[in-house]
């Protein structure tokens, strides 16, 4: 009798918890209501993330210590970091210059174009193995927003998809949920890059067989959807296959900004000065050609 009551109690509790979980999943997928909840829940989890990073930190520490020319190494690392930061700035500056030029030329307007960025350190922790995701050490306290683009000195890495208090998860462009609008830098042809869940391969769709694309072409962002800033390198074309029976070419590309825990990344706050007008973007891409 008593046992039966415990069991039906358990049934009831199970139904309740399952319902709560389902409501959470629905809210999470349909609305933005749970963003602050995630930030709160992440507080007790933060120490665990720190602990999980310790083995990698210790490894780097000892590697550095047993290095013979420790000081030289440190200096080298410092300079390297500075160099990277400068190169990242250079991309922004080039872009800003291009945009400025374009605005004054075509719109006869004098608008300053600055892309606010913040640098972040990728953490060594590994999320679900099947997801192409990394964690960086900037969170809601740094005013990171969902969908924020993440780049490094080589090109686009991905976008922020979840934020906790001091960290956020970046879904790489190679994840199979990701796709972004690109343009072939050399010819200005529009295409779409899709992640395949493979860290060094991307599928490029929307290119017809007769269109001008060759191996080695650089694909850059178009800024459509206002998600990514305009003109950032994304990938390099590695294979072009034109089958006779289809009108579209099979094109694959390799991402330029491969994730590497040693590299600092940049979070970008895109300022949409360009809108979604198509014509100026072509001009801009022509302008960014090297």
């Amino acid at each position: 009798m008593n046992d039966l009551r415990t069991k039906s109690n358990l049934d009831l509790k199970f139904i309740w918890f399952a319902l709560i979980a389902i409501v959470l999943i629905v809210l999470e997928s349909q609305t933005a209501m749970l963003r602050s909840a995630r930030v709160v829940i992440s507080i007790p989890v933060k120490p665990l993330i720190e602990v999980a990073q310790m083995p990698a930190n210790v490894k780097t520490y000892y590697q550095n210590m047993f290095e013979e020319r420790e000081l030289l190494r440190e200096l080298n690392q410092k300079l390297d970091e500075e160099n990277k930061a400068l190169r990242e700035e250079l991309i922004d500056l080039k872009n800003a210059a291009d945009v400025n030029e374009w605005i004054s030329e075509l719109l006869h307007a004098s608008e300053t174009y600055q892309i606010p960025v913040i640098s972040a350190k990728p953490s060594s922790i590994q999320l679900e193995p099947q997801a192409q995701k990394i964690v960086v050490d900037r969170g809601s306290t740094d005013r990171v927003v969902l969908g924020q683009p993440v780049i490094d000195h080589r090109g686009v890495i991905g976008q922020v998809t979840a934020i906790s208090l001091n960290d956020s998860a970046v879904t790489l462009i190679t994840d199979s949920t990701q796709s972004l609008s690109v343009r072939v830098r050399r010819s200005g042809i529009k295409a779409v890059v899709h992640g395949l869940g493979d860290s060094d391969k991307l599928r490029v769709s929307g290119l017809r067989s007769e269109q001008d694309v060759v191996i080695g072409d650089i694909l850059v962002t178009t800024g459509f959807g206002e998600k990514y800033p305009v003109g950032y390198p994304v990938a390099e074309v590695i294979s072009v296959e034109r089958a006779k029976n289809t009108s579209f070419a099979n094109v694959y590309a390799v991402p330029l900004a491969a994730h590497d825990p040693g590299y600092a990344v940049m979070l970008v706050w895109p300022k949409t000065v360009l809108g979604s007008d198509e014509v100026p973007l072509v001009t801009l891409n022509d302008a960014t050609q090297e």
Partner: protein
Amino acid sequence: MQPKSNYSALARIVPVVLSFATAMVLAVVALPESISNLRPDFVALVLIFWCLYHPGRVGLLVAFTIGLLADTMYFGILGQHAISKVVIAYVILRFLSDSDLKDRVVQQSVIVLLLLLSNVLILTVISRLVHGQSGSYLVWLTPFVGAMMWYLFALFRRKRTPRRYGIYQ
């Protein structure tokens, strides 16, 4: 089922908290890529352990909370691990609490395998519904790794404490 009087509340809770914390760290700690993709759901394994051996210490609330914490830790969909962990705890506490599994290493491992497979199934279905796609098929291998680990663990445990069964409840 009643707690022994010589167990203070703290002594009952600390091992539970520590084991879950360890499992969550193991779930994300950086490993070589070849092993990394095969690591089982350690949180689920720890939950199965507590539900099977010390059902008084964990319940559905603990399973739900741990699942929610795991969801934030992995930056996944909130509620995804919560529901899969609640299902595991419920199945064990509701249907397996009467059966005497404590000595049966092979039966235990089979049950662990089935529970871990259902865990993966729930997680996959949810990410498919939310993201419209699911990850690699490699994830279906992890329950087998987990069951193997459980088998070794249970063997070891049986060898080490042959006469102490019945003391812990």
